[in-house]
């Protein structure tokens, strides 16, 4: 035998759990295969033809994004003077996860029966909820999932709730029309769905509704909820809504929030 090094780095029988690297939660980084290696995958297109300069430009861009050892693993001209890139690199930025505070819908999620009981016990009358997909948006599947009888993913929609008076106004409902319906139905809560987000049309449209409601003095006594695949609770709050719901929402999530909020705000009269 000629080799000398035999590779021993710890003691057999050590508890492996003690030796697994832990993340520093005040400075987390992406994880590839080793704690803190920072590995990130990127892809993008640049408006320059493929070639060594294009690759260098891609590398520089990744570097500016804070990636060390950025490696352009794929580059391919896509015609018309554009090039597509795939890159990997080690992100030098860290995030303080330990101190993140995310605004969350804090109400407790109840089920179908609990919600109806809650309404009977704490509100004592039917709760009127309108739903609509507004502006030029015609994507009804999301709001239907919340409102319609048959519901979604095995959960009934609000129309099925005996203690809820639910009205689904459908799609392409203009804000002015929606306000008219709020008055007509004396709505307790309004659920607004926005799916198309190109050029931020949802932001404009959602904002316009708040302005309209405020102008008419309706905002205060109304629970205003937004939802859609690109809606977060945070965004909804920023836009002047009471709550926002994203992908995967089910009727009980919204209904639980609405009824508890009605009681909390003293609107359950």
């Amino acid at each position, binding site marked *: 035998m000629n080799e000398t090094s035999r590779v021993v780095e710890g003691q057999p029988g050590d508890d492996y759990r003690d030796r697994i690297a832990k993340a520093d939660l005040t400075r987390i980084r992406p994880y590839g295969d080793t704690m803190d290696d920072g590995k990130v995958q990127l*892809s*993008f*297109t640049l408006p320059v033809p493929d070639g060594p300069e294009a690759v260098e430009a891609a590398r520089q861009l990744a570097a500016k994004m804070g990636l060390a050892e950025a490696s352009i693993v794929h580059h*391919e001209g*896509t*015609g*018309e003077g*554009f090039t*597509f890139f795939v890159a990997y690199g080690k992100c030098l930025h860290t995030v303080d996860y330990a101190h993140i505070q995310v605004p969350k819908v804090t109400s407790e999620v109840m089920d179908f029966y609990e919600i109806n009981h809650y309404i009977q016990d704490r509100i004592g009358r039917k709760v009127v909820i309108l739903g609509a997909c507004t502006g*030029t*948006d*015609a994507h*009804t*599947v999301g709001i*239907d999932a919340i409102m319609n009888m048959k519901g979604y993913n095995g959960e009934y929609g609000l129309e099925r709730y005996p203690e809820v008076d639910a009205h689904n106004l459908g799609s*392409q409902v203009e804000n002015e029309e929606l306000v008219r319906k709020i008055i007509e139905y004396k709505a307790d809560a309004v659920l607004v769905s926005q799916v*198309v*987000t*190109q*050029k931020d*049309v949802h932001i404009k449209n959602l904002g316009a509704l708040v302005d309209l409601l405020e102008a008419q003095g309706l905002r205060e006594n109304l629970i205003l909820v937004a939802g859609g*695949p690109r809606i977060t609770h945070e965004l909804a709050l920023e836009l002047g809504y009471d709550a926002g719901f994203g*992908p995967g929402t089910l009727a009980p999530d919204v209904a639980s929030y609405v009824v508890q909020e009605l009681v909390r705000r003293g609107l359950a009269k």
Partner: protein
Amino acid sequence: MKSKLNLDPQMVERARAAAATIADNVTDFISQRTTESVERTVLRLFGVDGIDADGVPLPNVVVDAVHEAGLLAGGVTRPFMSALIATGLSVQELAEAVADGTVDISSIALAPEADIRAKARELAAVGMDRIRQNRSTRDAYLDRLDGGQAPLLYVIVATGNIYEDVVQARAAARQGADIIAVIRSTGQSLLDYVPYGPTTEGFGGTYATQENFRIMREALDEVGEELGRYIRLCNYCSGLCMPEIASMGALERLDVMLNDALYGILFRDINPQRTLVDQAFSRMINAYAGVIINTGEDNYLTTADAVEAAHTVLASQFINEQFALRVGLPEEQMGLGHAFEMNPMIEDGFLMELAQAQMAREIFPRAPLKYMPPTKHMTGNIFRGHIQDALFNMVGIMTGQGIQLLGMMTEQIHTPLMQDRHLALENAKYIFNNARHIAEEIEFAPEGRIVQRAHAVLAESVELLERIVETGFFEALAKGVFADVKRTIDGGKGLHGVLLRSDDYFNPFEIALREELGLGPVKVGVRG
């Protein structure tokens, strides 16, 4: 082609017969009516174009004027020809004169019928000619250049800005796309006019305007020439201006048009009468222009469940086929729609998708079936999405689809970025090439899941079609048989634009088209 599914020809026959009855009944209904958009189309085919000082398209201006004059039920042609004869203006000059008020069309007396007919025939010949010309230009291109092989690679551009669309479309062509579809801005289908000029501000799509058509056509011809390939152009011939867009497409040599008999009714809440009348005329134009239409059955599966509602897709294909045949659109131009929209988490879902696609292939053997990708079950997980699209492509090549509308991995997120389209094309090219002849190689176990699934879906759709015949088509729509959507005969948008034809209704293009398409003159009252 040997059947792999052993479908019962009698069942197929029953379905077709039921659909034929439905179409016959409705055709009779259609023949008695015209619409504002049909009449605007007539003007466009005569050559009216442009907008007035307020930006209103001149076809709208003239038709509105004729309508106000109470003359539209007889068709816009008679008063318009009379005014031409009376004023000696050219078609465009007259339209402009009506717009700026220098000519009051309501005050012009009708010319003698023979003069009107002669003038109309002469002028219609110009429009018909241009369409015929475009058709032979296309044929010449296809003789000289590579027209692609089925499944054709169809991708969308949707930046909202025609000048960005052009860049994206040309890049896509270079990457192998056979068909470029310019998606329309949200809401255009509900506009009762066609926007004008080159446009740069659309949402989720770009306005369909004649100038945008022209720009894209020019850009694609140019890049196609360079590549030695003919790149087909597609747009949306649907909504309140369905026939007008057909005419624009025919004039600018579009090759493919989304054009469904029911889509507007079900998905845009357009009045059923309006849609049915409009689709008939638009399809005549498409037929004559050699445009492949794409029907919209895929849309059913965005609201209904793809496993449960599979038979509604097939039923609707039968109905679309029969409507198309009634107006002379040959099977070779019927891009009947269907889609790969089952929940990807289903065990053996791939087998059911295979069954559905193969079934469509066998039942409509000559149609260039348009196969739509997964959309509803695409998520923000682009990596899984890319594989959903790969399985879709695999089914496409395994079952010999005609037009493969390529799925994008970012379907759930945004309208396609340039790189999304690039990767979608790469996905399809790889799979189509790597499994090129698989349809010839694969057979299905005779009593297996795939075969049984196809039989079951066919049976259900026969049942549905026969039920529709019994109920009556309009009543069936009102009951929500398709896509869980209920539409009444007098509901929805655009009913105000539907008119009962007067006895002397005159539409020279309808006459010319019916003649060219071998349809014989309109007959009313045979049924219904």
